[in-house]
């Protein structure tokens, strides 16, 4: 069957994809590694001079990134956001999925509602969250505040004090709270979808057996539901970690390009945000080194996740 004429035809079908992949996927992989290991590579020095500039090979870029003040902030923010939001959103999604699976009327309707955040533009809805937490006026001078914003109004209705969530002079953890809340809100739909899909394919016999033994609900949940769902849970946790380390647009949605509350720009920057800050300055060497570090982090975290799930996942 496999004659040379056939081969030639197959490559014709593949040609468009292969050409594009070579330019926009394969070359970038090679080039990123190359640039990252060329000391202080910067396209301004590379292009602007007539003679060919050569760069020494070394790990200077990595050193610069690691010494760079903003990198540690970005790493801390990214790690904190991931470590906090992934377990919380997974647990919440699991509870919602189990609840959804146990009801009949309104199940499809509620399922649709829980999917809604997925079909939104994360920057646009981030702006809505910002509006709900925003204080109109000067927070420090109560006389000058026209409204404390919806969330503060709710807090005050229950007798609490208003909090400066995202405006000038707001604290780190107030900012982080808003981000965590938004990221979880945003992460739920995909997790619920996958977990509910898993629950619906679970063999009903296990539950029947538990019913006969009149096993308490909590034990059914921890001893039957969670183990049977563990492949799906592992899947949403792994993709959650990968997505978490690439967090960027939720912060842009709420705080804007400045990646921080007014007067505190960059305080909430993430690793991806840092790469995009460096790019327009054409510091490709630095950006490449940062991207490789991000890749290494994601790779290591994913491997750890896989190892853990290998031990705990029941297939």
């Amino acid at each position: 069957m496999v004659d040379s004429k056939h081969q030639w035809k197959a490559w014709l079908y593949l040609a468009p994809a292969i050409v594009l992949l070579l330019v926009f996927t394969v070359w970038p992989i090679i080039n990123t590694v190359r640039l990252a290991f060329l000391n202080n590579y910067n396209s301004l020095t590379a292009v602007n001079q007539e003679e060919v500039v050569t760069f020494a090979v070394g790990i200077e870029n990595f050193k610069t990134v690691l010494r760079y003040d903003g990198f540690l902030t970005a790493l801390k923010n990214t790690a904190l956001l991931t470590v906090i939001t992934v377990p919380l959103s997974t647990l919440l999604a699991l509870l919602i999925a189990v609840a959804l699976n146990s009801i009949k009327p309104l199940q499809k309707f509620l399922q649709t509602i829980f999917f809604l955040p997925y079909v939104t533009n994360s920057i646009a809805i981030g702006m809505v969250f910002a509006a709900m937490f925003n204080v109109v006026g000067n927070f420090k001078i109560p006389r000058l505040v026209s409204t404390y914003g919806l969330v503060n109004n709710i807090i005050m209705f229950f007798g609490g004090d208003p909090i400066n969530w995202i405006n000038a002079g707001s604290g780190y953890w107030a900012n982080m709270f808003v981000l965590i809340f938004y990221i979880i809100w945003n992460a739920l739909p995909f997790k619920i979808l996958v977990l509910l899909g898993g629950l619906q394919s679970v063999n009903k016999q296990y539950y029947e057996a538990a019913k006969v033994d009149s096993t308490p609900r909590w034990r059914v949940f921890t001893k039957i539901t969670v183990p049977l769902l563990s492949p799906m849970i592992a899947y949403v946790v792994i993709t959650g970690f990968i997505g978490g380390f690439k967090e960027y647009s939720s912060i842009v949605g709420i705080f804007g390009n400045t990646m921080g509350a007014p007067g505190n720009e960059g305080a909430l920057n993430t690793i991806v945000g840092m790469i995009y800050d460096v790019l327009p300055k054409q510091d490709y060497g630095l950006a490449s080194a940062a991207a490789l570090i991000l890749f290494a982090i994601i790779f290591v975290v994913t491997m750890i996740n896989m190892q853990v799930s290998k031990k705990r996942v029941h297939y």
Partner: protein
Amino acid sequence: MSEKKAFNTMHDRNMQHMNLLQRITKPLTITGTYLFLFAMALIILFPFYWMIISSLKTLAEYREAVPTFWPRAMIFSNYAEAFSTGNLGRLFLNTAYVGVVSTILSLVITVLTAFALARLEFKGKNALFAALLATMMIPGELFTITNYQTVINFKWMDTYTVLIVPFLVSVFYIYLLRQNFMQIPNELYLAAKVDGTSDLKYLIKVMVPLALPTLISITILKMMGAWNSYVWPNLVTKKDEMQLITNGLRNAFNDTSGNTNYPVQMAAVTLVSAPLFLVFLFLRKYIMSGVSRSGIKG
């Protein structure tokens, strides 16, 4: 005999006891479950509700110390203002153009590649497929750096090309469609060969219609991606009139000083969100089945 009877009555009594307990706890758990789900649904829906009612308020009403949960008077002029402030009309057209063209081209490339990988025989097929899958592990940010450099060298900045071409090939879509194509029995292909049908004709007449649900999922995900893309257009477009809708939205309303005209901003956000909602309402099934297999947004 009497012993057995005694045991039976005891058993019955136990069962009755159980039933009574169940009769009390079951409605309670069901009510609890619904309450929990409704509370969660409320939290999910609230931002959308707030977005819409805020977009209809006057600025004065929005800034009242105690917020109103329904606008006293509906002000639709916020929408007109939002449209002109953000130059949204032009950006809507840009986004629609980029979305449609890149989806069509992407579909053609995906179908051809998936077909070759699923049906045609050539040397190195498995190696190529494995290499493709391997690229899926690398975070997209890593490609962005060199691609940024590349499009500057190609002098593509501020063109539609730069917004369309770099993302035409998605390994994930190829993978999805290849899996779908593999499920179509090979006998159909061989029969078509015997009849003298060409590969291309077979692909268009038989395989594409059979894989239509997957193709629809890919179309929607790709369109959603175009609609939501922010980072890349922000990097490669310097002229305002070449940007996409999300960039226009974020840049036109980038003031976080607290004195923003929120009703107008919320009107803009509503305008940008509405098309996705409409698509979702009509094509929910395809979106959800596509998403559950992908794990990526857009």
